[in-house]
């Protein structure tokens, strides 16, 4: 059952569709249903958006390495980059109730990742780079 595939993509928006496709294929291999597959695709998309915009934001160029691994329970997607680290705990949750005029159009990425995965974890290492692991469980009925 354990199957793993790693691909490397330039950290630019034009890579997003290809990354999403890799995740979708891995989700199918891992036996995720359509809803779970879409959820992990979207979570990975948000994470890659952040890597492109924030980690490599200051005119840095680099890659995103994406590893998809089917486990007995579901799918683990690991994203690696060599951009800036950050502290996710310092990111305030978005305001989801304020009226339109005051609504912040940004700040949704981490919220989406939190809501769309069953587990995730950030690791920052000066040599290894930044690592984000995202886990989506296979639903029991499958």
């Amino acid at each position, binding site marked *: 059952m354990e199957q793993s595939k790693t691909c490397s993509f330039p950290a630019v*928006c*034009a890579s*997003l*569709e290809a990354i*999403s496709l890799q995740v979708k294929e891995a989700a199918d291999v891992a036996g995720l249903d359509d809803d779970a597959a*879409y959820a992990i*695709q*979207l979570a990975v*998309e*948000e994470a890659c*958006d952040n890597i*492109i*915009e924030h980690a490599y934001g200051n005119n840095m160029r680099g890659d995103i390495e994406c590893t998809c691994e089917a486990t007995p329970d579901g799918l683990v997607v690991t994203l690696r980059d060599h951009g800036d680290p950050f502290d996710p705990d310092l990111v305030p949750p*978005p*305001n*989801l*109730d304020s009226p*339109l*005029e005051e*609504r912040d*159009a*940004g700040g*949704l*990425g981490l*919220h*989406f990742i939190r*809501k*769309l995965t069953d587990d995730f974890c950030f690791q920052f290492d000066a040599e290894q780079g930044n690592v984000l692991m995202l886990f989506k469980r296979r639903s029991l009925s499958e």
Partner: protein
Amino acid sequence: MKYTTQQFKHCDLVKVSGRIDSLTVQELEAVFNDLLEAGHFNLVCDLSEVEFVSSAGLRLLINVQKSCRKLDRGELVLAQVGERVFGALDLAGFVPLFRMEDDVLQAVGSF
């Protein structure tokens, strides 16, 4: 991502299909900006054929809605919102901020 626009007497329709992500949203943003700059604030966005939308796409929709609603001069109505798109809007807390219509005709006819 592909789009078509159609101008009516009291509103404009933007029909989007495919993937709205950080790359493709830029083209869509230009479309909406053209409409807003031309003073068109009654807008319908037909999302029936959108297969994927990230928060970058939602950000555009909310910003367009802000421009439209300013001074009560108009509104962005979402038409034929599919399950995936609705799920994302819901996650973002954006559902109460848009009028949604099942039917494009209903949406266009409401302006």
